[in-house]
């Protein structure tokens, strides 16, 4: 008996044995390997290293736990025999769409600073600049209109992508633009195209592409003046919305974050981001209330509260406001 065991262990050519995988794909193993025998799991073809993970001996088995779940097709090699494992997941199905492109208005100033592309689900990083185009009315693309930042500007959930225009192609002041000219020209029509091939976090392309067509209007160079906003106040005891008309579209993401009321509630933007509406959680109470406006609020051209975009901050001659926030008081009347 002992001789037989010894023979088994020492036999250089052992019988072919497949590597096994658990149903959840987390564990790979072979039964009763000879001492020192190993197997390897590979996720790629050609001259590639084996998959990262940990081997251990457990109850006579040689067990491998890959560091990451291997969702795609993999192969394992043991005693020269290749075992192939199919992908653990079905091919990803397209489900994500572009919910909106902000600004939502279709007349945009020639010194427009940015777009936001808002997706219904999480997206992948690293391919944004190959999936976006700005087309002229004749369908020809505007060459390199955007600032193609390697890091890509995503929100933490990878659901909102910020597109900044190349600052060298935004017309500002009276300075001529050399070499390439502005990306946007007053009176012309353009279409921002989001390619349907952009993949979501699951690896599936978008369910459909998206097109936003707009016409370019004169540059906006005035600072934001909250004192000029039109406010409609609701009655006490109701949960009717407080509405604020900006008189021009503001940056949607900043407007929702940087304008806050002194009571809890939910803000939304309407009328092409020209109007802010706020519904309180509890009915309005009569008396004095206040809106706080962070001065870093921007309009579509990057003009801020009390300060237009084109300012040399080393010599801030046009800067009037030094505080962090501007307060707009309002009064809720009793019924």
């Amino acid at each position, binding site marked *: 008996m002992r001789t037989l065991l010894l023979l088994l262990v020492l036999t250089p050519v052992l019988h072919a044995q497949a590597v096994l995988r658990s149903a959840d794909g987390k564990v790979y193993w072979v039964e009763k390997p000879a001492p020192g025998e190993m197997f390897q799991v590979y996720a790629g073809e050609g001259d590639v290293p084996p998959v990262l993970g940990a081997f251990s001996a457990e109850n006579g088995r040689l067990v491998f736990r890959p*560091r990451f779940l291997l969702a795609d097709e993999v192969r394992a090699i043991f005693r020269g025999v290749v075992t192939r494992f199919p992908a653990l997941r079905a091919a990803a199905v397209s489900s994500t769409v572009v919910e909106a492109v902000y600004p939502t208005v279709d007349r945009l100033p020639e010194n427009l600073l940015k777009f936001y592309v808002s997706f219904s689900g999480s997206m992948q990083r690293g391919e944004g600049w190959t999936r976006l185009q700005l087309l002229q009315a004749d369908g020809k693309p505007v060459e390199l209109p955007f600032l193609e930042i*390697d*890091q890509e500007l995503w929100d933490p959930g990878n659901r909102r992508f910020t597109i900044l225009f190349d600052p060298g192609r935004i017309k500002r002041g009276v300075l001529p633009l050399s070499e390439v000219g502005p990306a946007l020209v007053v009176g012309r029509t353009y279409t921002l195209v989001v390619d349907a091939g952009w993949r979501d976090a699951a690896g599936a392309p978008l369910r459909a592409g998206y097109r936003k067509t707009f016409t370019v209007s004169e540059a906006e160079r005035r600072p934001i003046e909250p004192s000029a906003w039109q406010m409609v106040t609701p009655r006490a005891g109701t949960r009717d919305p407080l509405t604020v008309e900006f008189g021009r579209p503001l940056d949607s993401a900043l407007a929702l974050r940087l304008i806050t009321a002194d009571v809890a509630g939910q803000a939304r933007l309407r009328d092409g981001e020209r109007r802010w509406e706020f519904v309180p959680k509890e009915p309005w109470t009569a008396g004095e209330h206040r809106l706080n406006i962070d001065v870093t609020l921007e309009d579509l051209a990057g003009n801020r509260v009390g300060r237009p975009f084109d300012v040399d901050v080393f010599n801030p001659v046009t800067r009037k406001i030094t505080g962090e926030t501007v307060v707009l008081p309002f009064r809720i009347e009793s019924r």
Partner: protein
Amino acid sequence: MVKVFSSLCFTAALALAAPAVELKSAGPLTFGPNGTLFAGDSAAGRIIAFETNDTKPSKGGTVEIKGVNTKIAALLGTTADQILIADMAVNPISKNIYFSVARGRGPEAVPMILRADTAGNISEFALASAKQSSVSLTDVPAEGGRQRMEAITDLGFVEGKVVVAGLSDEDFASSLRSIPYPFEAAAKGAGIEIFHGAHGRFETNAPVRTFVPYTIKDKAYILAAYTCTPLVRIPVSDLKPGAKVKGTTIAELGNRNRPLDMIAYEKDGHAYILMANSSRGVMKLKGEGLDGYAPITAQTEKQGVPYETVETLKGVQQLDKYDATHGLTLSDEAGSLNVRTISLP
């Protein structure tokens, strides 16, 4: 009984224990003295110093790793299109090559640091088992904001300090922070204003994309490059907490371009700077007399420090110095990312 085999388990087994610092993102890398690796983590707003203990001196030799993206993907059990390589740094002592990598491109992407030896074998650099210290930056853009991932755009080690380029949360957002190592506390950065000739205006909000420490007449400077490629000279001694510093623009190297990486070197008794670009190839700039160029203060196209484009280097995304006469490049060649040593031009 569980018995551990193979070097592969070493890294994975240790990772089971809670790591001292968990990377939230893996960004710029640079080496300090004695094999200390500094990594920028924009998502966490933190710089981490790892003692790599990778200090066995090596002369290196010729390195060529073809399809490093495919190899990294295979190691991490995924496909090459799910791998993003943020930076590459050569350990000046061992000549081993370190990569900051994201496995995955969605919000669940896992940041890692990998190491390739001079033979091209790639393994994980086990963060948890490395002695480490970290410093949190005090003034990074808000978490969740779109500019947070630009909190740290490049790192360098100059005269005992880690210099960190990126954005702060201030109005004057372009920031260079100078943090003494070993770390104590991170002070605020200095806000940097430059005159950008191609844009015909002063700029304070655009971050430095890449920089190289550079000595001019025995004085330490940062040579910094920005999008649309102004090259700016900033004295390290000016980088005081909260200071507002005016950089001196000494070259405009062309519009519609992003500088990707820079190294400085000497050849045949002359100083040069090599700069990789997104759309203008690899530039070899004259590195002498950088204090002699008239500051650019008016709108201009290309001007300042002269350069030639190195036609033999195509698709270079990352550059590092390998030894006195060689550089290391990471180049995109028809979708395959290849790492190789090059003779410095």
